[in-house]
């Protein structure tokens, strides 16, 4: 596009919007961003898997693999792609399971109660930590007192609440990595320490998750997760992998390069 000050288009933009072209572009970007937020909730309703195929209509490889998944996973719940999607997908899918599993809920509550002391012992500042812990526990208690799927979904779609939960899951992941630093150190090349990794790739919001995040969080909580991989790979069907290795999965997540959603078997 020409950057001409006498450009009639620029004049037209200014006359109709009262803004210069740059301002109008920025305003439009804001609108698009807002639209993404409006149309993609942080966590969606449970949808038939066919909605996923609709995204790949012109893509025979993906279409075929998705069709093959219909029988095993008829439903999907999408999460917003904001770099926190693994934590949000994991958090929601697992807590949704807790709605109907009292024994697991009891075990989870004890694990979380203990986690606070571990975090403090590792040197996390208790002033801010407690804020996130209290909110997390508030949601767990809510599940115990009044197990309601619509309430849980509302909680995860409320940006403030939802992000507080994500932060606590990030802190749990960081704590596990630091506690078992001798083991996790093997995953890093070069001189990067576990502590460095945690403060750069785990604790900050919007940082995407890798296998190491998933291994650490699922090991720390003792919650098995199956990840189904949907990619352009040679194999006919989508592969899957269980975290931590050997633990029976309680929830299933779908991975597409750069993004996690939730899958449902029935």
């Amino acid at each position, binding site marked *: 596009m020409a950057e001409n000050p006498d450009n009639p288009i620029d004049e037209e933009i200014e006359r109709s919007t009262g803004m210069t072209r740059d301002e109008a572009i920025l305003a439009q970007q804001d609108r698009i961003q807002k639209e993404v937020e409006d149309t993609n909730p942080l966590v969606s309703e449970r949808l038939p898997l066919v909605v996923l195929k609709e995204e790949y209509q012109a893509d025979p490889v993906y279409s075929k693999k998705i069709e093959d998944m219909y029988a095993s996973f008829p439903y999907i719940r999408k999460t917003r792609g904001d770099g926190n999607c693994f934590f949000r997908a994991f958090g929601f899918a697992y807590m949704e399971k807790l709605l109907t599993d009292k024994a697991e809920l009891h075990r989870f509550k004890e694990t979380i109660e203990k986690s606070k002391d571990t975090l403090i012992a590792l040197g*996390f*500042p208790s*002033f*801010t*930590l407690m*804020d*996130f812990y*209290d*909110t997390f526990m*508030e949601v767990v208690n809510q599940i115990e007192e009044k197990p309601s799927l619509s309430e849980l979904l*509302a*909680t995860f779609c*409320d940006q*403030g*609440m939802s*992000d*507080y939960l994500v*932060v606590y899951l*990030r*802190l749990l992941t960081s704590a596990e990595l630091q506690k078992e630093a001798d083991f996790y150190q093997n995953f890093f090349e070069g001189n990067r320490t576990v502590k460095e990794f945690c*403060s*750069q790739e785990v*604790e*900050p*919001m*919007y940082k995407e998750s890798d296998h190491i995040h998933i291994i650490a969080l699922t090991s720390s909580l003792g919650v098995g997760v199956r990840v189904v991989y949907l990619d352009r790979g040679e194999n006919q069907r989508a592969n899957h992998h269980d975290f931590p290795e050997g633990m029976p999965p309680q929830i299933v997540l779908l991975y597409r390069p750069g993004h996690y959603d939730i899958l449902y078997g029935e």
Partner: protein
Amino acid sequence: MASQNIDPMLPTMQNKEKKVNATRRKDGHSVTMRLQRELMNVMMSGSTEVSAFPEGDNIFKWIGTVKGPKGTVYEGLSFKLTLEFPADYPFSAPTIKFKTPCFHPNVDEQGNICLDILKEKWSAIHSVSSILVSLQSLLGEPNNDSPLNPLAADTWNNQAKFKELVHEFLKKNSKNKSS
């Protein structure tokens, strides 16, 4: 936490209940609430080394003070800072600048600061008081590998000379500001 703002006599209509719930959540986890808790935390700490307070009525803009750490070239000086909080605080870092001219390897002439926890290492677990403490440490322990002020980084090993430059910089730039 007790839900103090909910009138127990409220009608139990599903919709209404939901609305109250949503509002309470929003209040309890809004940026404003977090900043108010932080303000309380800073004030209750009773620290004489660092302090901070909102500038006027706007809770999103604070003025902070950090004393030059004892036993360093900054001893006896006191530095004012501006703190600006983004709308998605604490998920994004505040913008912090030195208001008092500060000759330091990791501070530029405009007062911008290069500190990892304010950039790529920011996380919601940090707070105003922990940042101020980190900034005070930064004064005495600069990172000379990636300086914003190369002259300061080069002079750091000559502490006597460095101290002179600190005072010169303060004098020169304070004068410029008031004229």
